[in-house]
């Protein structure tokens, strides 16, 4: 009962969506759209679970004075401040309501966005250190990796003279030809892997995610 019903549900919904693909009629489309809408609504309830987990883990850290516990207070402070601003619907502490609340927007614009884009820009540094660390001519494969990366990185270097022209041509050939071939091979493999895994899930062969007992 605990296990059979979920497996049956997985199978029924899976088969339904396969059939749905071949039926263009409105009634089938209507069901399909509803299923998609529902997923978002369920996602919100799941998010509540997530937030609960975050609060519990952070609070645990504070309560047991685990290492770095004061920082957990910052997480909780940020979380509750943002929730209060974001739910400021009836009280009007500030100038606007709900998501239009001034502080909510300001936290988004001046805290979330700058940290986010800075985290993203760390990639410039990490791509450099990864290149330094890993691009060594250790083996044939590593050398191929290294050479093709070098050619691409030199493609617009202005200090190479006439040599640069060849670099540029080789680089664009590399990007257009072998790149296409390898990507297609990977895509086909990944596609088949996904199809096979989906099938295994529907047939109940792959069911790690449902747990036991």
């Amino acid at each position, binding site marked *: 009962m605990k296990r059979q019903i979920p497996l049956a549900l997985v199978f029924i919904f899976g088969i339904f969506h396969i059939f749905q693909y071949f039926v263009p009629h409105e009634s089938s489309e209507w069901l399909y759209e509803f299923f998609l809408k529902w997923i978002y609504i369920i996602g919100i309830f799941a998010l509540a679970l997530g937030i609960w987990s975050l609060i519990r883990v952070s609070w645990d850290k504070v309560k047991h004075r685990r290492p770095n516990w004061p920082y957990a207070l910052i997480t909780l402070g940020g979380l509750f401040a943002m929730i209060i601003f974001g739910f400021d619907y009836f009280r009007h502490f500030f100038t606007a309501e709900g998501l239009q609340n001034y502080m909510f927007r300001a936290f988004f614009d001046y805290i979330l966005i700058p940290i986010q884009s800075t985290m993203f820009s760390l990639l410039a*540094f990490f791509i450099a*250190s990864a290149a*330094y660390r890993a691009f*060594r001519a250790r083996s044939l494969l590593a050398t191929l990796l290294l050479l093709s990366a070098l050619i691409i990185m030199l493609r617009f270097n202005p200090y190479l003279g006439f040599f*640069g022209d060849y670099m540029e041509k080789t680089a664009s050939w590399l990007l257009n030809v072998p790149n296409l071939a390898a990507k297609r091979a990977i895509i086909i493999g990944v596609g088949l892997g996904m199809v096979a895994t989906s099938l295994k899930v529907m047939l109940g062969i792959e069911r790690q995610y449902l747990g036991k007992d």
Partner: protein
Amino acid sequence: MNIFDRMMSLDRRWVFLLLAVVCVVTYVWPFSIPIRTTDEVENIFDFIDTLKEGDYIFLGIDYDPNALAELHPMTYAIAEHAFRKKLKIIFATLSQNGPGMADQAIRDITDSVKLDRTYNGVFYPGRTIVNGVDYVFLGYKPYFALVILGMGQNFRIPFPTDYYGTPLDSIPMMKGILNYDQIKCVVDITAGNVADAWISYGQGRYNFPLALGLTGVMGADYYPFLNSRQIFGLMGGLLGAAQYEKLSDNPGPAMDGMRIQVYAHIVIIFFIIIGNIGFLASRKKRMGKEVK
């Protein structure tokens, strides 16, 4: 630990530091770097450079703010070059989110033409660019294929008035300007399939000289049209824009961007080489030891 071992296992913070220093220096210090110019871009520059004072060109700003970083430098470089040569420009945009951005860009360009400048050894006194006399901005109309075709008959069909609502017939510079026949060339700057429409509906049917400015990713797909002479020039991405800035001796955002890019790439390549020298040298030594 000898020098080769050290080269091989540098603390990555040196990599970070050097990259950061190089990026900041090249960002703040506006020196210019050599840019290799290619035929595709030179063709566009030469074409515009040899036009006579008072000639008309058409500049299509057919991208939206998403592609601004890559394509704005091209618009700025070409428009400023044309204004300095006292050409007259017809601007239009076939991208829905384009008009506001294009209007702002035109204002910026006319502002910078007010200053005295020397380009390629020739002194150009600053002059005031007047809307309706030196340029006209037609604005945006949907169905780009139809607009391109319509302009082949008469600009007044898709655009009875300009962006600011003035009827084209009452704009001084549009007197006697009916369609592409009175225009020396069309330069279309775009990030989308408007380029295909310009080639097939515009150039294909009305046979005017057409040049394209495209994003870096799109560039490679349009080389066949150069071979078949359907377009006379092509600029791809920041690199193409930087070439135009170099040719017109007017360093701008593209040259700035390329300066940082080139040096950042050099730093990374430098570290790759260091690492490999260290690696190969220490492997040789290790192998030598094993033999003994």
